[in-house]
């Protein structure tokens, strides 16, 4: 099982994501933003960071990277794609996921250990969890407030596509406490908090983020 991890200029959590892929039991394959092929990977992760500095809207430039054309194509055919933080922003800008991530409601960058509740375990990236399971993983971003119009929100909720919600006080003003969503098919997932920083209690708040990276193995076995 080969999981690609894309590095854009300005990507920061690529090595962390690769480490998590390996900890989950798969092979991590480095993909470069300018690559013209996906190197036969079975799944792709878009890691966190500040691609191209995020001086424009976050992710607005990355969506035009050559590798994204291939990712969009593969996602359309059902390849599992996970976007974490900046990766989630790129997926929204690429229209693989609806909505947008805007500045945190208090306008500050926020790094903290965040409790989230897994609300959908039918996706390629969440099957290792149980519905209602609460986990603590790091949240760290300046633009993590999920926004969309009422119609989209109703659709996301109606189709069960909210895959995780913040527990307790809303950390950033996201609508309906949304921490992550999926596409209709469930192969593309965007998540604001960082499971790759919670694969080992030595370096993270918990090891409870590992499930995202073991889920992908289940998806392949099916």
């Amino acid at each position: 099982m080969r999981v690609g991890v894309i590095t854009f200029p300005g990507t920061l959590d690529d090595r962390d994501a690769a480490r998590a892929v390996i900890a989950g039991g798969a092979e991590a394959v480095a993909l470069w933003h300018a690559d013209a092929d996906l190197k036969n990977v079975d799944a792709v992760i878009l890691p966190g960071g500040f691609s191209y500095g995020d001086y424009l809207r976050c992710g607005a430039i990355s969506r035009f990277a050559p590798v994204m054309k291939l990712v969009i194509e593969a996602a359309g055919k059902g390849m599992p794609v996970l976007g974490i933080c900046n990766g989630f922003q790129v997926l929204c800008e690429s229209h693989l996921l609806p909505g947008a991530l805007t500045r945190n409601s208090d306008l500050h960058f926020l790094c903290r250990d965040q409790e989230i509740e897994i609300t959908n375990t039918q996706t390629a990236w969440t099957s290792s969890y149980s519905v209602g399971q609460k986990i603590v993983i790091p949240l760290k971003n300046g633009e993590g407030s999920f926004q969309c119009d009422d119609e989209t929100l109703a659709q996301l909720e109606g189709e069960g596509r909210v895959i995780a919600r913040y527990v307790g006080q809303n950390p950033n003003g996201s609508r309906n406490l949304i921490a992550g969503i999926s596409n209709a098919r469930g192969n593309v997932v965007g998540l604001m908090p960082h499971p790759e920083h919670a694969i080992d209690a030595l370096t993270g708040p918990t090891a409870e983020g590992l499930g995202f990276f073991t889920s992908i193995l289940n998806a392949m076995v099916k």
Partner: protein
Amino acid sequence: MALDTVAIAQTTPDDIQPFAQLGLKADEYARIKEILGRRPTSSELAMYSVMWSEHCSYKSSKVHLKQFGDKAPKSDALLVGIGENAGVVDVGQGYAVTFKIESHNHPSFVEPYQGAATGVGGIVRDILTMGARPVAVMDPLRFGPADAPDTRRVLPGIVAGVGGYGNCLGLPNIGGEVIFDETYAGNPLVNALCIGVMKHSDIKLAKAAGAGNLVVLYGAKTGGDGIGGVSVLASETFGSGGSTKRPSVQVGDPFVEKVLIECSLEIFAEDLVVGIQDLGGAGLSCATSELASGGSGGMKVALDKVPLRDPSLSPEEILMSESQERMCAIVEPEKLARFLEICAKWDVTVTAIGEVTDGDRLIITWNDQVIVNVPPRTVAHEGPVYNRPMAQPAYIDDVNSQVVQLPIPSSAAEIRATVLQLAGTPNLADKSWVTSQYDKYVQGNTIQSQPDDSGMIRIDEKTHLGVAISTDANANWSYLNPYQGAKLALAEAARNIATAGARPLAVTNCLNFGSPEDPGVMWQFAESVRGLADGCLEMGLPVTGGNVSFYNQTGAVAILPTPVIGVLGVIDDVRTRTPMSFDVAGLDLYLLGDTHADLAGSEWAFMHGQRVGQSPTADLGREMRLIEVLLAGREEKIFSAAHDLSQGGLSAGLTEMVLRHSVGATITLADVGISLLSESPGRVIVAIEASKTDALSTLAAKYHITLSKLGTTGGDSLIINDAVISLAELRTAHTATFPKLFG
């Protein structure tokens, strides 16, 4: 303005030049003429003015800093010492760690966000320049009174700048300080520390060797920002009502720096450079003259080849610009093609601007006309040296002869009120409002970060080798006794890393003071350096480098003498570190060390506006024995937790421990007021299981460290004698302060 060339300078010896506006004194200008045998060209004048600034030349501090070399202890760990961009120490298993701290004080007052951001950017490039991957940053910060209106302008901007730049580079921020005092109003201190990791064989130095090798400039284009940053901004006292000097502040682009880091590490990995230097303070003037003097001295540069953001810049401005995110490498001609390829991969602008020559002159041309022809050592290393007058200031005898007179709590109600008050006072309150704006998780190797006693980073994922680092200063003690203050800060930083079980290895420092032209300030500085050098010799810790920041004063008011000391240590297995607090009930709490009535310079005295008395005297022999107890206790698995006591004494130490995992404690104290408030140095709280009592007693006795029982862990309150403080109210007191002040 017409181009001023060497040829013109030779024929117009009497032209009047603006040396004073550039920050040079008349005798310094005369010396430049003597060196060159003619008047300098305007470009040469620009170079000398920035390189001979206090910030770059250390002209007032050099005679004192010599002690770090003269009194250097024997150390097997030191691989690269003072003089390079940063010191390098051997941490075992073939790894070398480089670390350094620098100030960016004045720019951060003028423009808080950019000043702080580029402070981080500059120190990170210093670490990168040594050949290392930067792995963490830390930021000791000092501000005017927490409730002052200007602090509300400066602090949020500085915090956002530190976070904005560091977060975007992907560097975890693992600690620092946030301290308030009225002397920092108008002179906030922004000190930035960076740590980098490499293999021994990867160490790079700033030298231009080998005639015919190319001088290659890469990274951001040069703009008009930060011109004269080191001279007109960093090396002068702020006057009242003067210009704001905003154009002298650099503007940072962290994305470019992130790309520059990855690009440089790829270039280093393929061994494509002979020497390398970053462009920081004094920009190209510094990089070219330092690289040339690091080699045989000869270098030729075509300044018109420098890529510009603003094409209207004059050669003088290009030489003085402190535009960020630039590096200068010395590259063998046959390796240039590969160098350019890697830069192209990362979309980094790169230009060969000159070459190393056989001579001993640095020659810079502009459209083929020679505008600079100097011996580079005279620019980079042979600047003026001042033995400035110094005198013990009058206040010293005055404050030392007084005794602190403070209310000492004794009743249960008084103890409750005191502990809650200390928990919420800005200097001791929870700093999450600040640190939650910093990414502490990126890179996945952070083992400890704020509010732990020290920051700790894993450097090998297989062997679990790690390093710990702490920065400390107690300016109140330094004010009362600068010699002791520096020693005590050194001891505290070393103790903070030993508390977790890391063995102290080496020291860096950032010496923040007022104007060196004030004999009293100069005396404070000299005493601090003497204290630090003596302390390092006694503790066997080499000083690997550092930074001096003078002129931190507005008008006649200087900041408190603030020597910030950083100590780096190594731990063989980060998994076995001693944590800062306990998460279970039923443990016994002990105090290691002696408590005296040390209230002078304490937080309790500060809160009551009293800065008088005599600072404690550092007993470094005892500190070293305490460190051995802490290291042995970790190795023998005696401690469940250990926490250093410093500002706020036992009261603050207990508050931080019980709140960490929300497990309370019941404490019994004789002489309760002094026990809670004293800040006697060399003390650590440890938590142990009852079965370890004998082992702890044996260990303490072996190293002659006083051991006394404090109480036990458990419950949902902090109980001190008959005073009961619920964790809920303690947490509220501790955490409410910053959000209330800063929103």
